[in-house]
């Protein structure tokens, strides 16, 4: 193995600057003549705006400008867009209400943007914001997902009758009905997938600078995808032409999906800095983050499974109502449709699946991708339903899974819901996880717990996800407005060190380390001589960014392809220098050598020769710098089994996770330490959803979980030390053999936790978050308390 190459748990390069306080986040950046922005937001969930008087605010100390939706419209800026089309059952595209970046005549959720106040200091901007006089005509609010489309509900958008965005049926309805009609047993489950606030540690921020000389806008943003931001802001929001707009996502403190999207504040800050001809800075406070970051999940669903007498799944039917919030965020429509329904086969051979997704508008913050995005919702539903089916059939949850797993020799496996899984060994992961979790002796532990008045439960979750997000042709067919490949440039400097430019973006993932490992492995350049550069449209080539566990599986391969091009070119240069035929040149461990001789040349010397081509192959371009793009042939399909063991105190309803086992198939691991960190973080995210996190609006549309006083984030003492291992298989279409690991824990964990609690209490179901009071009530009902 190459030192610090693939498979080495190299410590993260980026951590030094973070640990010594030298990170460079958007809010750390201050520029000369900078002004500060504060947004005036709607205090009402649903209201008309009868008038806005900015006079007193404009006259307030230190104020530079107060701008409203009228100013934005006059300049032709916006509206915000949703980039994925879903065709509704009437054959029409999904209903897309106008999404102005500053409200024009109406507000649709608490936190909706009404005006921007720009002042010399933030305190002055906030003071003046209180003086913007807005006359609202308050309307009734719609906040409940399940009833949003009911007859007689308050209408939110004229273009969306019954508050429906789309009704998207998918699958062979008649065949599924026929299978249900002749089934031995049908298991049914109603469930809620609770709404989450994504909560990256660093709040969103934007700093806009306009250069009157070059007519260029530079926007520093908290973004997971600077080029996507630039593209959307240019091509759709009319902010500035792409070549006159630079988007920089410097150090970004977590994203989890919430920083993919193009937000109102970002567009408005970019526009305002040109308007006032001063740099404009905005940093979200935590309350604003709760109110206006895109939220996640929020489904209400009914799932049914038809089985034969052996518990073999014959057909599944799923009816889902998904809340998209007040407006469509950038990728909102894709999440409860393609990213959800196409995962409903799970790890199973269920031959027939029918799904209907009704997506609704409500007077709540927009809902979009949050770690896993659609796949946690699908997995939770499937894995809970499978447990209910096991109980109905009198089978052990492990046994019913085994009976229905896609067998290892059936790959590639075409599911009835579009996805063709390329590789996997589900039974191997289950076996390993059960052994690690000591599944077979669980009943002894449960008996012991009873002597202490506790109830133990064990829960399985055998998940599969589709990530990499993914082949451009596939997402294009589905209605995505962009391609989804990734780019890389690997540049040698004349002195032999290497700069790697990636279109992916790191906001905590450790790309600066992992990608350097790829290059050191492939090119033999010492790890410390490799710098990974990302996050600045002025530095990196166009690229799609980081989400959907795609950076390594797609972006990593692009880097590998660029390295291959360098090796190919290096062979020509070395052949010339070593006076050998190109076909005789071999490359290994950073050296080009003539086969069968001791004549060799290090890649650093080759790079120098390429920049100082005094003696050089005829016709060959100088320079040692290659670009590559990679568009995979398929999604990648990480999978695995998680096993959660809980102890419930029936007297208080407190759930303690006493043991958690995860066996995942991520293909090859580049940096096992980083992967394990991703697994840990993902599990904690999933445990948070299962036990703690529940975003709630009241009936008037006020967000009642708008701070950490009321919105419970998971903390270290909410989880045990995890037992993590792997059961890898090789994805044949991925040249690096990697699958992606960033979302797996958040996908696998929620059903494992809820299955364990249901098992502990001997109940069919409990909705997330399984708060102490809800668990206590369930225990009362089950007569355990």
């Amino acid at each position, binding site marked *: 193995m190459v030192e610090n190459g693939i498979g080495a748990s190299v410590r993260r390069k980026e951590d030094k600057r973070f640990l010594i306080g030298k990170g460079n986040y958007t809010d750390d950046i201050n520029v000369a003549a900078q002004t500060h922005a504060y947004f005036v937001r709607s205090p009402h969930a649903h209201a008309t705006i009868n008038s806005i008087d900015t006079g007193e605010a404009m006259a307030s100390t230190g104020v530079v400008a107060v701008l409203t939706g009228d100013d934005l419209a006059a300049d032709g800026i916006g509206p915000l867009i949703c980039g994925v089309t879903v065709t509704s059952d009437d054959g029409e595209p999904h209903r897309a209400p106008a999404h102005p970046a500053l409200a024009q005549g109406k507000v649709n959720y608490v936190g909706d943007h009404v005006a921007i106040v720009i002042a010399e200091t933030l*305190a002055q901007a*906030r*003071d003046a914001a209180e003086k913007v006089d807005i006359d609202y005509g308050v309307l009734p609010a719609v906040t409940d997902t399940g009833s949003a489309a009911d007859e007689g509900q308050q209408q939110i958008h004229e273009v969306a009758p019954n508050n429906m965005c789309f009704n998207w049926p998918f699958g062979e309805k008649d065949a599924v009905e026929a299978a249900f009609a002749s089934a031995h047993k049908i298991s049914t489950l109603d469930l809620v997938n609770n709404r989450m606030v994504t909560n990256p540690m660093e709040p969103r921020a934007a700093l806009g600078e306009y250069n009157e000389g070059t007519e260029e806008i530079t926007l520093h943003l908290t973004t997971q995808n600077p080029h996507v931001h630039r593209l959307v802001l240019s091509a759709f929001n009319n902010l500035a032409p792409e070549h006159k707009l630079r988007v920089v996502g410097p150090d970004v403190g977590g994203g989890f999906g919430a920083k993919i999207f193009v937000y109102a504040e970002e567009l408005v800050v970019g526009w305002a800095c040109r308007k006032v001809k001063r740099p404009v800075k905005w940093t979200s406070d935590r*309350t604003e983050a709760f109110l206006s970051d895109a939220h996640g999940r929020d489904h209400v669903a009914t799932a049914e499974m038809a089985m034969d007498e052996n518990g073999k799944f014959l057909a599944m039917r799923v009816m889902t109502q998904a809340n998209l919030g007040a407006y469509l965020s950038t990728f909102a429509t894709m999440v409860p449709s393609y990213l959800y329904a196409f995962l409903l086969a799970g790890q199973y051979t269920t031959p027939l699946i029918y799904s209907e997704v009704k997506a609704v508008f409500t007077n709540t913050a927009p809902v979009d991708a949050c770690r896993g995005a659609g796949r946690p919702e699908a997995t939770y539903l499937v894995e809970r339903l499978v447990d209910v089916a096991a109980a109905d059939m009198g089978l052990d949850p492990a046994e019913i899974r085994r009976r229905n797993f896609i067998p290892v020799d059936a790959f590639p496996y075409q599911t009835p819901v579009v996805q063709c899984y390329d590789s996997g060994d589900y039974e191997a992961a289950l076996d390993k996880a059960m052994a690690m979790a000591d599944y077979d002796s669980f009943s002894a532990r449960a008996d012991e717990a009873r002597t202490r008045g506790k109830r133990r439960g064990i829960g399985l979750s055998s998940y599969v996800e589709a990530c990499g997000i993914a082949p451009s042709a596939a997402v294009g067919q589905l209605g995505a407005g962009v391609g989804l490949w990734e780019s890389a440039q690997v540049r040698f400097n004349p002195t032999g060190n290497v700069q790697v430019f990636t279109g992916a973006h790191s906001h905590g993932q450790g790309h600066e380390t992992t990608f350097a490992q790829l290059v050191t492995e492939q090119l033999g350049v010492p790890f410390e001589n490799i710098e990974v550069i990302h996050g600045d449209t002025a530095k990196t080539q166009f690229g799609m960014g980081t989400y959907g566990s795609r950076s390594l599986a797609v972006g990593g391969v692009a880097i590998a392809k660029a390295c291959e091009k360098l090796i190919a070119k290096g062979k020509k240069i070395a052949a010339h220098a070593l006076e050998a035929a190109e076909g005789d040149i071999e490359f290994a461990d950073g050296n080009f050598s003539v086969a069968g001789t001791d004549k060799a040349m290090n890649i650093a010397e080759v790079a120098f020769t390429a920049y100082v081509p005094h003696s050089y192959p005829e016709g060959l371009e100088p320079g040692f710098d290659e670009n590559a793009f990679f568009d995979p042939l398929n999604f990648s399909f990480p999978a695995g089994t998680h096993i959660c063991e809980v102890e419930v105190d029936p*007297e*208080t309803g407190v759930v303690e996770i006493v043991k958690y086992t995860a066996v995942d198939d991520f293909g090859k691991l580049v940096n096992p330490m980083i992967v394990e960190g991703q697994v840990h973080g993902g599990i904690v995210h999933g445990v948070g959803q299962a*036990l*703690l996190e529940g975003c*709630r609006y009241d009936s008037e549309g006020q967000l*009642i*979980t708008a701070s*950490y*006083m*009321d*919105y*419970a*984030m998971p903390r270290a003492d909410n989880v045990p030390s995890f037992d993590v291992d792997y059961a890898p298989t090789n994805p044949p279409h991925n040249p690096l053999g990697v699958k992606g690991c960033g979302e797996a824990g958040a996908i696998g964990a929620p059903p494992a936790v809820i299955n364990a609690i249901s098992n502990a209490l001997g109940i069919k179901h409990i909705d997330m978050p399984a*708060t*102490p*009071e809800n668990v*206590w*009530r369930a225990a009362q009902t089950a007569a355990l308390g």
Partner: protein
Amino acid sequence: MYEFSYHKSASVDGAVEAMNKAEDGKFVAGGQTMLPTMKHRLAAPSDIIDLGGIAELVGITVEGDSINIGAMTTHAAVAASGDVQTMIPMLAKLAGNIGDPAVRNRGTIGGSIANNDPAADYPAAVLALGATVKTNKREIAGDDFFTGMFETALADDELITSVSFPKPTAAAYMKFENPASRYAIVGVCVAKTDDGIRVAVTGATPCVHRGKQLEEALKGEFSSAACVGVDVPEDQMNADIHASAEYRAHLVKVMTKRAVDACT
């Protein structure tokens, strides 16, 4: 945060004088409630009188069978005090579980009980241990100090100087934490004192209170079983998204039982 005038005095008298001159002044001890409230623009005092410079308000002293804790002593200092750990271990443990390390290193006992948050921990200890609150004007019995939600017996220009806790025979505090804020959804402090068995309940109702019926039951027999039949009325309980009144009433009993078990 709105604009305000800032004062820092080195003496209790100086602080009170500044308060008397202020239009709408507020004393700030550790600032762990006051400052976030001001940052959220939910409070706009004209003047802030910082008590952080008054040395005489800081410190822990043993006075016979009591421990006297200066009002500006931090939670972290109480938690780490050998004297407190020896004489009233429950109190050290309670202090060591308030908020997080940042809160414990800034927040003070005087600030906590003067604020009288319905879900704060210290008020339960003051009531259950029968502590005496000493001010620049007088001594107030713990039983008379907490008068309502965020309300106390303190006058506007009255400052807590210290709190004196008599050593109990046995005491335990059981806190059922709000999973988000980690404040008490219900906290029950049970103490065997020279004054008999005292039970104080925080978090459950708008103001910390004595659980008189629980005390009665425990006087007969100091055991968790004695609590089982006690009626904890739901209609006086707080209710919010984290816990209904019914659940809180249930938890009052459960936490009392567990505190009793921890005492015995």
